[in-house]
């Protein structure tokens, strides 16, 4: 399965339903918004057309020219993109790349992101696609503007175009000492330019602004509390919304008595089938109103954790395919040593610290929603469908939100707030509670992964048969050279609402694969590093594996009953990673040290890459050791932070990040890949210490190696 297929699949997974209505957008006149100056536009470039794929349900892209960059007469540069910021720091890294190509000061650039009325259409911010897909478009846009400014200066000055230099936001003619800022060059005129096909671009080896550790552009607003997150948006006359939640997934309303709620001053109750919500003049009235509603629900029976994996195997939508398996079967039969193992992962919750939130405001028939989402245009489409209105009547604005990790693809809070706002005739703010977030958002899929493999006495893996049920196809292909292999994903009708998560199913597939590789190495008595290297020819994987092992001093580490060392490696979203970890068994499992080597092509912001890599490791600790959604009969049983444990200061290991900067290779995203390495490396380290091979995530939900796994 290719990366592109993953992307499309991910998009499809999170579309709540298809688009019912579509209208070609009117050409928007950005000069009205921005006044005079230089505007760089593009007819939908091919990269975007590709990216849209099935996500647009086969609909045509807008026929207008999308506007990407504007230079105002005062020199302010505004860059427009549908990508959104949620902590991954692309507001900074994209601005660096634009500044680089435009030869403009970094601090003159403002990124206008995720406002569907202003920015070009975008599929959404996920799949580590901002750096490999959006950044090249913006570099191209910036280079186009730079070339146009050089042309303009050459005309103004009647100068030799080839002698002119663009630098620090100015065009300079060294021969005449003439110089003008970009803003001056536009002279307030309305200039527009369509993106050039291949303007000259700066190779990473020559980068001056990109490739450096620029600090977060608006960092000061975050340490002072000034930044307004979606849940901080305040509108005049705003009311506070609250939804009456059903007692379980799939529950149907039998009856509801809302009189007492309606009697509370200023409260508006909105009721439509299973949807019952209130809007109130203040948050406490909203809370009281929801509590005052007496509702009876019918709750259907459903599976629970106890029988989850049997359920997943019994509800497969697409079973195994025959092709190519005969080779694998023959190779398995002939292999000196064979292994057959099953690995499982539980549902886990993204737990973004800012829960889903939206403020919705109707002005006549125009709806504006401020909400935290990774897909502003996707949410717009959901609203278009929900309210049967035209896309130009819906504006979704996404202020930089309090994280997502793949968990904010849908527009649930936006639709709910808009529904209440429509009923109340006033703007409505709706902020999900933590309990709602744990219960009614979607989860990282649970999964069952069955692996059969064969290895020769010399350590060559000869057969690989890998089947993932439900969790997904990302990262399913082994990075090892295996002559006969099958790796298949089998979709399942999930009992819980599930969707994207940081690195998607690659966390599950890496856990199964890298655990299994260690089991094979152990079965033939080879060192984990030597066994991996024997079966790896990909130079980029080998490089990170070697880098991590060297930094960790892998060869001199000897496991004992209290201390284990483990490793894992792989490639995901175009990045390459390897981790070596040290765990302590006291008998609580403690991760003491992690060395992570990561390579993502030419590094755009080394500090940002480090921050993301460290963060991925810390977040990975939760999924590796203790995070798990507990449920029965469609009801989440641990929807609170006191019973759903996330990594805290106390869980933090020493983390060393080794970044391999490959200026000769295209940049790829850094937000996801490193998370894949942690869980299998920890499982392998626990095995090295205790001899217990744990084949399920989380590995130690109660802190210690589970009794049933003890060897």
């Amino acid at each position, binding site marked *: 399965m290719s990366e592109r297929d993953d992307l499309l699949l991910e998009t499809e997974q999170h579309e709540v339903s298809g688009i019912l209505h579509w209208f070609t957008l009117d050409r928007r006149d950005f000069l009205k918004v921005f006044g005079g100056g230089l505007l760089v536009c593009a007819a939908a470039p091919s990269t975007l057309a590709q990216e849209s794929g099935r996500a647009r349900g086969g609909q045509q892209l807008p026929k207008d020219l999308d506007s990407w960059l504007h230079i105002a007469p005062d020199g302010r540069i505004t860059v427009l993109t549908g990508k959104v910021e*949620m*902590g*991954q*720091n692309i507001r900074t890294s994209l601005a660096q790349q634009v500044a680089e190509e435009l030869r403009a000061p970094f601090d003159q650039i403002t990124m206008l992101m995720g406002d569907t009325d202003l920015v070009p259409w975008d599929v959404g911010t996920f799949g580590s696609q901002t750096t490999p897909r959006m950044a090249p478009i913006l570099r191209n846009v910036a280079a186009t503007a730079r070339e146009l400014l050089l042309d303009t200066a050459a005309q103004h000055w009647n100068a030799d175009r080839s002698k002119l230099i663009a630098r620090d936001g100015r065009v300079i003619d060294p021969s005449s000492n003439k110089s003008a800022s970009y803003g001056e060059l536009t002279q307030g005129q309305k200039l527009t330019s369509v993106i050039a096909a291949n303007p000259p671009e700066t190779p990473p080896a020559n980068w001056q602004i990109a490739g450096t550790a620029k*600090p*977060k552009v608006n*960092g*000061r607003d*975050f*340490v*002072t*509390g*000034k*930044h*307004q*997150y979606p*849940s*901080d948006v*305040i509108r005049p006359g705003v009311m*506070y919304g609250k939804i009456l939640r059903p007692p379980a997934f799939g529950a149907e309303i039998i009856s509801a008595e809302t009189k007492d709620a309606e009697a509370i001053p200023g409260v508006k109750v909105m009721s439509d089938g299973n949807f019952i919500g209130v809007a109130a003049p*203040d*948050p*406490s009235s909203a809370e009281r109103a929801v509590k005052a509603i007496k509702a009876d629900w019918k709750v259907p029976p459903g599976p629970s954790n106890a029988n989850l994996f049997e359920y997943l195997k019994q509800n497969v939508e697409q079973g195994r395919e025959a092709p190519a398996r005969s080779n694998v079967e023959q190779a398995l039969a002939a292999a000196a040593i064979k292994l057959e193992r099953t690995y499982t992962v539980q549902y886990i919750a993204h*737990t*973004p*610290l*800012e*829960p889903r939130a939206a403020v919705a405001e109707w002005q006549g028939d125009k709806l504006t929603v401020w909400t935290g989402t990774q897909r502003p245009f996707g949410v717009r489409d959901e609203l278009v469908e929900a309210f049967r209105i035209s896309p130009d009547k819906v504006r979704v604005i996404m202020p*930089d*939100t*309090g*994280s997502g*990790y793949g968990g904010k693809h849908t527009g649930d809070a936006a639709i709910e707030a808009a529904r209440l706002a429509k009923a109340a005739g006033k703007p409505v703010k709706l*902020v999900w*509670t*933590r309990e709602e977030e744990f219960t009614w958002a979607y989860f990282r899929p649970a999964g069952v992964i069955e692996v059969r493999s064969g290895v020769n006495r010399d350590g060559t893996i000869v057969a690989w048969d890998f089947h993932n049920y439900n969790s997904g196809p990302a990262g399913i292909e082994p990075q090892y050279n295996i002559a006969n292999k099958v790796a298949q994903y089998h979709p399942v009708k999930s009992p819980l609402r599930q969707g994207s998560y940081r690195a998607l199913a690659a966390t599950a597939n890496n856990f199964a694969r890298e655990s299994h590789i260690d089991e094979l190495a152990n079965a033939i008595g080879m060192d984990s590093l030597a066994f991996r290297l024997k079966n790896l020819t990909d130079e980029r994987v080998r490089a990170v594996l070697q880098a991590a092992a060297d930094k960790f001093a892998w060869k001199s580490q000897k496991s004992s009953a209290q201390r284990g060392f483990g490793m894992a490696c792989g490639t995901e979203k175009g990045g390459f990673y390897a981790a070596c970890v040290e765990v302590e068994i006291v008998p609580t499992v403690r991760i003491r040290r992690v060395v992570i080597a990561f390579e993502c092509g030419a590094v755009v912001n080394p*500090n940002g890459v480090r*921050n*993301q890599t*460290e*963060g*991925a*490791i*810390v*977040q990975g600790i939760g999924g590796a050791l203790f995070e798990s959604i507990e449920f029965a009969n469609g009801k989440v049983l641990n929807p*609170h*932070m*006191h019973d759903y444990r*996330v*990594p*805290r*200061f*106390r869980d*933090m290991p020493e*983390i060393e990040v080794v970044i391999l900067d490959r200026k000769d290779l295209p940049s790829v995203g850094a937000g996801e890949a490193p998370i894949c390495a942690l869980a299998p490396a920890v499982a392998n380290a626990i095995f090295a210490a205790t001899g217990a091979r744990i084949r399920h995530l989380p590995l130690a939900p109660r802190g210690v190696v589970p009794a049933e796994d003890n060897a």
Partner: protein
Amino acid sequence: MSALVLNVNGSERQVDVPPDESLLSVLRNSLQLTGTKYGCGEGQCGACTVLIDGRPVRSCRTPVSQAAGKKITTIEGLEQNGKLHPVQAAFLEQEALQCGYCTSGMILSTVALLNAIPNPTDDDIVRQMNGNVCRCGTYARILAAVKQAAQQSRRS
């Protein structure tokens, strides 16, 4: 509803709210001080941390009536005359944030920690800050920021 006078960041502010409404809700919704965040409503994540008479409290679990008559400090009250508080400056310099949603609570917990223990060890920091969650996983940088702020406070 009852009228209460709150002393927030050195100013007297009058609010007319139910006495059992959380301080967090009053700060955010009545006083528009949105720098203090809702994270869990259960006192488990620390995003809503404010100082009351210099001590860190979870404003989501504090009825507003309990805060009346006391000195409340929120993230908005740390910067003085355009100059960042040393803890804010340290978080910024260490880039001890990603999405930044936990940052207000982290900074106020740090201010309280350094008031109580001016020269904290790593263990002190982990123990005192363990109730503050950063889902982006920037703990190591926050630890570095706390230590930097401690050093700066000692020097000044």
